[in-house]
């Protein structure tokens, strides 16, 4: 391969602590504008910040989950720049003494596993939000000012947009697992910036790094990276170079557009934030946090493969989120066949959740309900297909599967006499199909079974029907 893509990511993640990073204001998405504010998070003259201990703890959790080194001594700094949503003219962040450094995430690629190294994870405060109106004025909401963030910076170890996608998925699921963030891109609790350029392996030439911002979903990020990858390659092939600039992804046009040119690197004039004492983290605290870390996605996946005998693919899908995994495990606990449960959870349950943009927590039914549904099928009370219909009802109404079956009269017809009558009726109306079958057209059998199912509104026991038809027409 002549061209090598080089990608580094900077991910901002809002932490789900109860209160903001430097004051007692509630840390909550939304709320009436400018109501979750106080002198400290508004940066009023004279107000001094006090670091929220939970923020440090959450960041350490993330650091441990990503194999980082946790610093016993770190420090807050001021990053100085002007913007209306920045209340103090500086953001309290960490410069050269971050809380976590090093670390990595392991990606499972087709050929081999790959470690993407992290440079650092540091804590900082979020800014307020600017809302630009059509008449050219700007409105400011400071509810978000002072919401705790971690910034995760990778080394430029990612070499394809799809790798970046895998990285982001794994990052997200891990952060959700350890309960430090809800990682909702649509609410801005996870934001991702990309640095990308391309190297020509033959000539050694490399393009200038493009920074990509305003990426609203992982998919958008991937498409933007793919677009940039091509753009860089084309320019490189023509012997040209990219500009050092920041671009954003235009979803409608399906391309990146220039946001601002970088006239030299920004100078944030970092200085020590001496209003906050240096952060001292004792080893005993780190160990205590490590002990309390939940099982991480990778370990859970390995366990699912071993303990439940699941294929790798199933284990992968089921451990995407902690909630999905525990929904699965709880269902299995009711004595169900692990693979059968996996088929249901990965198939109908997950598909429906994805279609509706819902999360496992939003489900109206419980693992016990799903287990009961599987019981109904196992006991031949309903067919698999009826089961799917019942599940759809469960999604919408949250009613118990037994109740749905009863109310709608969906109990499977397994009574031989009753079925015999229906089968005979269908056969007498479809003589041509019988002839076709006898002439070797196997498809005709399926048609006949279908007709019986139709006549019983799906309630006939399909195995029995199949056998009865065969018995009659093969005589």
């Amino acid at each position, binding site marked *: 391969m002549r061209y090598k893509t080089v990608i580094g990511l900077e991910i901002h993640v809002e932490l789900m602590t109860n209160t903001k990073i430097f004051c007692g204001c509630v840390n909550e998405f939304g709320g009436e504008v400018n109501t979750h504010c106080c002198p400290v998070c508004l940066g*009023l003259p004279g107000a001094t*910040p006090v670091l929220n201990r939970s923020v440090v703890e959450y960041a350490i959790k993330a650091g441990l989950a990503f194999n980082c080194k946790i610093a016993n001594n770190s420090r807050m700094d001021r990053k100085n720049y002007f913007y209306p949503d920045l209340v103090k003219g500086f953001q309290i962040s960490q410069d050269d003494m971050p809380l976590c450094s090093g670390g990595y995430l392991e990606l499972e690629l087709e050929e081999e596993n790959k470690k993407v190294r992290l440079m650092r994870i540091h804590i900082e405060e979020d800014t307020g939000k600017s809302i630009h109106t059509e008449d050219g004025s700007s409105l400011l909401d400071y509810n978000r000012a002072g919401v705790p963030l971690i910034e995760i910076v990778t080394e430029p170890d990612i070499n394809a947009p799809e790798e970046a996608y895998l990285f982001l998925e794994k990052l997200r699921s891990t952060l959700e697992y350890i309960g430090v963030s809800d990682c909702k891109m649509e609410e801005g609790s996870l934001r991702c910036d990309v640095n990308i350029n391309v190297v020509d392996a033959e000539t050694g030439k490399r393009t200038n790094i493009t920074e990509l911002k305003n990426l609203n979903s992982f998919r958008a990020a991937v498409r933007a990276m793919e677009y940039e990858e091509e753009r860089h390659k084309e320019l490189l092939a023509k012997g040209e170079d990219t500009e050092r600039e920041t671009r954003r992804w235009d979803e409608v046009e399906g391309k990146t557009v220039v946001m601002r040119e970088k006239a030299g690197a920004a100078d944030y004039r970092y200085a020590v934030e001496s209003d906050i004492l240096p952060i001292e983290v004792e080893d005993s605290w780190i160990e205590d946090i490590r002990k309390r870390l939940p099982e991480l996605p990778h370990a859970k996946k390995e366990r699912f493969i071993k303990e439940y005998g699941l294929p790798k693919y199933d284990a992968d899908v089921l451990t995407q989120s902690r909630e999905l995994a525990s929904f699965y495990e709880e269902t299995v606990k009711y004595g169900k066949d692990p693979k059968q449960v996996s088929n249901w959870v990965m198939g109908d349950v997950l598909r429906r959740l994805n279609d509706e943009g819902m999360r496992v927590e939003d489900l109206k039914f419980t693992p016990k309900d799903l287990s009961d549904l599987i019981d109904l099928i196992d006991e031949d009370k309903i067919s698999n297909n009826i089961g799917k219909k019942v599940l759809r009802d469960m999604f919408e109404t949250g009613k118990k599967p037994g109740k749905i079956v009863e109310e709608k009269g969906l109990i499977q017809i397994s009574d031989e006499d009753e079925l015999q009558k229906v089968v005979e009726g269908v056969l007498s109306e479809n003589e041509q199909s019988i002839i076709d079958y006898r002439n070797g057209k196997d498809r005709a059998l399926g048609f006949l079974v279908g007709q019986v199912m139709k006549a019983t509104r799906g309630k006939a026991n399909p195995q029995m029907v199949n056998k009865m038809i065969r018995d009659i027409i093969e005589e």
Partner: protein
Amino acid sequence: MDIIELSAMEMKTKLKNRELSARDIVEAHLERIEEREGELNAFITVTEEKALEIADKIDRKMKDKEELGILAGIPIGIKDNIITYGIKTTCASRMLKDFIPPYESTVVERVIEEDGIILGKTNLDEFAIGSLTDTSYFGATRNPVDLDRSPGGSSGGSTAAVKAGEVAISLGSDTGGSIRQPASYCGVVGIKPTYGLISRYGLVAVANSLDQIGVSGRNVLDAALMLEAIAGYDKKDSTSVDMGPVNYLENLKEGIEGMKIGLPKEYMNIDIEPGIKDKLMKAIKIFESLGAKVEEISLPNTEWALSTYYVIAASEITSNLSRFDGIRYGYRAKEYETLDELYINTRTKAFGREVKRRILAGTYFLSNKHVEEYYKKALRMRTLIKEDFDKAFEKYDIILSPTTPNLPFKQNVDNDPFIMAKSDIFTVPVNLAGICAMSIPCGHIGKLPVGLQIIGDRFGELNILKAGYAFERHSSIGGDK
């Protein structure tokens, strides 16, 4: 009896003995303010109505035999860079000339809890940057001792008001000498407490690693009283330290028999006005006569203190003053097309020359290209300077020096900025080291007062109060007006 001549302690006693009502005290001081303000300009805002209201409340409490706080009935001035809830807090800047804070500072909260009576907000150099109280948007303050001279700065208003009897005690802030230098120039007692002793929640930051709220009074006891009222841990300021309750008033009269005093030899090589050196030598004799042992010590990094201070202070100023951008509160320029113009026009118009000079310098010191050679080097120097003091305090209880090497500057003339900067040489090391110090009157040259600086270790307030009190009692010239 002239009420305004009384010390704060005397006012307290007379209020308790019902010789005076709180209203008598406040009215006398408001009258004094009325009389002197025309020439002094020590106040930016006088809160006459509110003060009388509180005086009446205290008198009612007296009548109902309710328990009173330790500042009951005492008229107090608050430097106008300390936040007062609902009362204009301007920092002597056009930027905040109409700013009414929606919250209370911790020190003012404590003053109010202790039944102190705030008479108003006192003048300062714009954002406490300066040493003459002449950069205020509201005009310069003059020295009550000599109206042609500056009271010093930046807490010139707070200090002049105490000296002139407009208030009994006041709160100021000290970043590099801003309480002690005016105390020296006006002939009062001024204390810069240890960094962390007093909450800075509500002190508009100028150089936040150096700033500390402190007190001025006409004698050591008055200053100690105020210090005792406001000292103590505050969970809203992470740099405040929990030292438990302080008992300065109870313990400061213990005497200084056996106290070990250091006299830095490096300070003696500094160009000091000869008369001032004489006063220092005399003071040493008094301390020795009181049973203290005075020895020469060394603070080898003294020569780097001023440049270290200047770099750190400017770097912090540039960042602390960034919030004044015209977006949310304070002054906003009327003419602008773009966001950048809004910032530029606002800050150009609303900041004074000296403030802008420091912002520019600090921006330079922190810039990518220069941060190593200025800011980071200054941080390392600061550690060395601090270690000098740590070493000295292993052996000595207090350190003595003049407060300033010179007498008060003339007001409203072009003073040489380099000479002015040099005048902070004895005060800035104390802020860099985060320790405490007091300036106490130690005589006059002509009619101009001279100040003696007593430096103590971190949380060594009791030592400097003891030394100051003993010195004041045993010298005929201490504590005069």
